[in-house]
């Protein structure tokens, strides 16, 4: 590509005025959605499709003494039974670490672990086949608590032991920091397992093409993770396997993790062995038992400060309760530990984060990836400190927030002013001081209801950073009609991030977003683009989309310049036309330009690529720069507590996020609202309970997620823009971020209402009522 194109392109990037970026444009896939047209995997079901269902362990930890499938094989409609012996390739379904078999060999390590697969003509046949399957188990001692699991006498769940990662932060001299502090507080915080609970249950459809290719269409975030495992498990030549992402009804992390590999491998194995199309899915209860949950955390924070509220020392000990297999637990603890102080500058920090295997069900990637739990513990701690110091919580925060020049807990220098912008906007929009006083006046009436307002702030290390290779590939092609087709291995599963890529392409090519068509992610058509996780599609994928669009421009520019009799640096792409800067009478339609290019035999298929700089930090001290840039945010919540029932209702939220550059404002609004509501569920009632490793909150009757009636009546929101270092046009990560703060913000609001900080989530009625009774303010009619 010539220097000139790149230079002009950089000018476009710096342009103050965008034609498409930042405008309220509808999602490119919205029309299909409201007409009911997207094809989700289960829409492929028909009479000729076989079903497959797993025989699952009822024990959290046991040896398999024997299995007997004879009764199953006799069930009418059962056509095949698959155990680990029938796996042609490697029995490895672990998403990142090869520690998890697809089908258990001689031992099960959690409730619901798959032992065998039953394939049959319909759902009734496989259900009966599973019920008839006999497995004899010898239960083994099991461990469910992370602290117990670290003791030498604890049952060893994996050969290497139960501790899978110990993340350290050693900054300054924490002992000296505490010694110089006027006030030191220490609190323990706990959060439970939770379920990401995408509305669409994991599902995969596999069939053999006439040429022998095994095609698998499935609901998932990461087609290449699934592809690589299917190739390995079936031991097929890589070119004989094809994985396509169907429309996907929600991801939230679990669909980037273990369970999409399972259903895809089940369907692929059964289709390959039986030479018929197969659908593999779960019941809702089964999905909840086997999909990776949000980890349960236990966090002890000890904080020292001067009497005027300057933070001097912070010590955190974090225990992450994992399931019996790695999944993403070793990475989640890393993100949680790096963010353990909240978005504050503390000169002396000592932190130890432990990720520990247990015999609970699987836990792994879930929206926020450890940040919601770390921020809950840090931000409630800050509130308790403010109370102890007799300071306004906002004032204490402003005294310590990360500003330009501040050093984070890992001593990474912050360059932008995003956080201060967020805090100031949130305080203004929520009328913080005024509303705080109004709540206090209201509470002096000592009625049945009490009100409170609370705040929490965040920083969120962007994209993968230390969690993996942070790259993306975006393919563009243009046809005779001037339509641009965008295809990538990055997937859409709800946030609208692929529309952001379409917006960026439309901006550079000067066309309508509706003229950019998204093609389905297909491992046969695109190169691996890394996982669609860590809120990285707009930030990293956006850079690849810009690169692809720029490559198209480098092909089209010389033609346009020739047609218009100008230099290439005078070209303006806008409104479906290419014009000469300063002379709008001279123009050529984009479509015409494309036709000419194709007529000349030019290939209008390009591949854009971007890879973020590698991040570095020291494993022994945790010091360094683990992330390339940070998103900042502030969330104010107003609540009403019913002191008769302990019910908490969120009345209003004020959410302000530094998004770097708002590329897709309609998408942002929906994600900020939706993430706030999801986080409200985490704060108030979501809790996935195991009793001795056996889940007891399966199904919607056991595990509540927010319904419309529970959503706050109003979510006031604003975005501020403090340009990020690496993101497309300065964009920062936003997909997961709105779910990070509600737990902390709502807990602080409840504390303002009742005068006491509850340190364990969810703030369910029984827990709140217990606090109210202890405080002597429970309402007695």
């Amino acid at each position, binding site marked *: 590509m010539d220097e000139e194109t790149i230079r002009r392109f950089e000018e476009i990037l710096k342009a103050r005025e965008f034609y498409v970026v930042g405008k*309220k444009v*509808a*999602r490119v*896939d*919205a*029309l299909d*959605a*409201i*007409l*009911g047209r*997207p*094809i*989700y995997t*289960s*829409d492929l*079901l*028909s*009479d000729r499709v076989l079903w497959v269902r797993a025989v699952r362990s009822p024990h959290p930890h046991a040896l398999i003494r024997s299995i007997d499938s004879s009764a199953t094989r006799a069930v009418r409609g059962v056509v095949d039974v698959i155990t680990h012996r029938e796996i042609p390739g490697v029995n490895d379904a672990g998403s990142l670490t090869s520690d998890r078999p697809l089908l258990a060999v001689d031992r099960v390590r959690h409730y619901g672990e798959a032992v065998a697969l039953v394939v049959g003509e319909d759902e009734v046949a496989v259900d009966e086949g599973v019920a008839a399957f006999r497995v004899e188990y010898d239960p083994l001692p099991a461990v469910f608590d992370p602290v117990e699991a670290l003791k030498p006498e604890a049952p060893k769940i994996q050969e290497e032991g139960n501790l899978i990662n110990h993340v350290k932060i050693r900054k300054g001299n924490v002992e000296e920091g505490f010694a110089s502090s006027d006030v030191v507080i220490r609190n323990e915080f706990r959060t439970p397992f939770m379920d*990401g*609970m*995408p*509305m*669409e*249950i994991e599902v995969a459809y596999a069939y053999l093409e006439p040429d022998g290719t095994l095609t698998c269409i499935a609901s998932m975030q990461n087609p290449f993770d699934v592809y690589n495992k299917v190739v390995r498990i079936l031991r097929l030549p890589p070119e004989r396997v094809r994985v396509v992402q169907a*429309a*996907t*009804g*929600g*991801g*939230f992390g679990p669909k980037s993790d273990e369970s999409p590999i399972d259903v895809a491998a089940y369907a692929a194995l059964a289709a390959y062995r039986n030479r018929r199309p197969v659908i593999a899915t779960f*019941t*809702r209860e089964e999905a909840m038992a086997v999909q990776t949950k949000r980890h349960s955390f236990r966090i002890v924070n000890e904080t020292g400060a001067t009497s005027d509220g300057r933070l001097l020392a912070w010590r955190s000990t974090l225990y992450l309760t994992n399931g019996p297999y790695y999944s993403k637990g070793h990475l989640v603890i890393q993100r949680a530990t790096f963010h353990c102080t909240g978005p504050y500058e503390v000169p002396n920090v000592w932190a130890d984060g432990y990720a520990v295997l247990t015999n609970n069900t699987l836990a792994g990637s879930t929206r926020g990836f450890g940040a919601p739990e770390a921020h809950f513990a840090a931000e409630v701690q800050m509130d308790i400190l403010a109370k102890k110091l007799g300071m306004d919580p906002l004032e204490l925060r402003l005294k310590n927030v990360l500003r330009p020049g501040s050093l984070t807990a890992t001593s990474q220098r912050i360059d932008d002013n995003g956080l201060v912008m967020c805090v100031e906007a949130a305080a203004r929009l929520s009328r913080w001081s005024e509303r705080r006083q109004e709540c206090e006046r209201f509470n002096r009436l000592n009625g049945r209801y009490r009100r409170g307002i609370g705040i929490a702030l965040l920083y969120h290390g962007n994209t993968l950073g230390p969690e993996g290779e942070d790259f993306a590939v975006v393919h563009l092609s243009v046809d005779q009609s001037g339509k641009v087709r965008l295809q990538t291995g990055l997937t859409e*599963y*709800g*946030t*609208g991030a692929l529309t952001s890529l379409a917006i960026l392409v439309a901006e550079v090519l000067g066309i309508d977003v509706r003229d950019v068509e998204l093609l389905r992610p297909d491992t046969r058509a695109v190169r691996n683009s890394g996982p669609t996780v860590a809120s990285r599609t707009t930030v990293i994928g956006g850079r690849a989309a810009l690169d692809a669009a720029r490559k198209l421009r480098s092909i089209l520019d010389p033609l346009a310049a020739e047609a218009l009799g100008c230099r290439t640096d005078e070209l303006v792409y806008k409104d479906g036309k290419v014009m000469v800067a300063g002379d709008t009478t001279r123009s050529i339609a984009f479509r015409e330009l494309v036709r000419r290019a194709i007529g000349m035999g030019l290939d209008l298929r390009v591949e854009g690529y971007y890879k973020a700089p590698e991040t570095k930090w020291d494993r022994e001290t945790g010091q360094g720069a683990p992330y390339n840039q940070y998103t900042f945010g502030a969330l104010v919540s107003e609540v009403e507590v019913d002191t008769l029932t302990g019910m908490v209702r969120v009345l209003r939220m004020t959410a302000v996020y530094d998004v770097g550059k708002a590329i897709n404002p*309609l*998408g942002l*609004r*929906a*994600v900020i*609202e*939706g*993430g*706030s*509501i*999801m986080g409200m569920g985490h704060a108030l009632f979501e809790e996935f309970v195991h009793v001795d490793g056996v889940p007891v909150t399966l*199904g*919607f*009757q056991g595990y509540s*997620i*927010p*319904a*419309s*009636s529970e*959503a706050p*009546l109003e*979510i006031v929101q604003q975005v501020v823009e403090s340009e990020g270092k690496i993101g497309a046009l300065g964009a920062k990560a936003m997909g997961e971020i709105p779910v990070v703060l509600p737990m902390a913000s709502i807990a602080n609001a409840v504390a303002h209402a009742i005068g006491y900080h509850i340190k364990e989530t969810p703030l369910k009625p029984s827990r709140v009522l217990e606090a109210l009774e202890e405080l002597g303010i429970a309402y007695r009619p």
Partner: protein
Amino acid sequence: MVNLKVNGRPYTLDVAENERLVDVIRYRLGFMGAKEGCGEGYCGLCIVLMNGRPVHSCLVPAWRADGAEIITVEGIGSESSLHPVQRAFVDEGAVQCGFCIPAAVLIGKWMLDKGLAKDRETIRWAYKGLLCRCGSYIRFEESVLRAARGD
């Protein structure tokens, strides 16, 4: 034998006693807009309009639909003539993962038809039977209000 009308077209079908309306609509008639998320009447993804009212079609035995008129998302608008609620969903950016959208659109249509789309409080209670994990509830409310205003 069951006679029912789906999206204006009559069908006569032999149905088993335990066959569910959702399966008839999806797999025998091919209207895939109705989804399934639990099969127990909690999530609401399978909501269709039966004789003008939203029902969880996973809980309705197919024989109960004898003589009924069923409307699915496929039956209320087309690309060239969107239903006002569909238009509003696009303009408000209400679509996230899209899985509950067919049901959400139908609830909105029902509210408009019955003159219930007056205020947010009423609309949010109408959506109580539908779970949206993306949390688009406020967008649904704004969409229905927008459609009712005729924007």
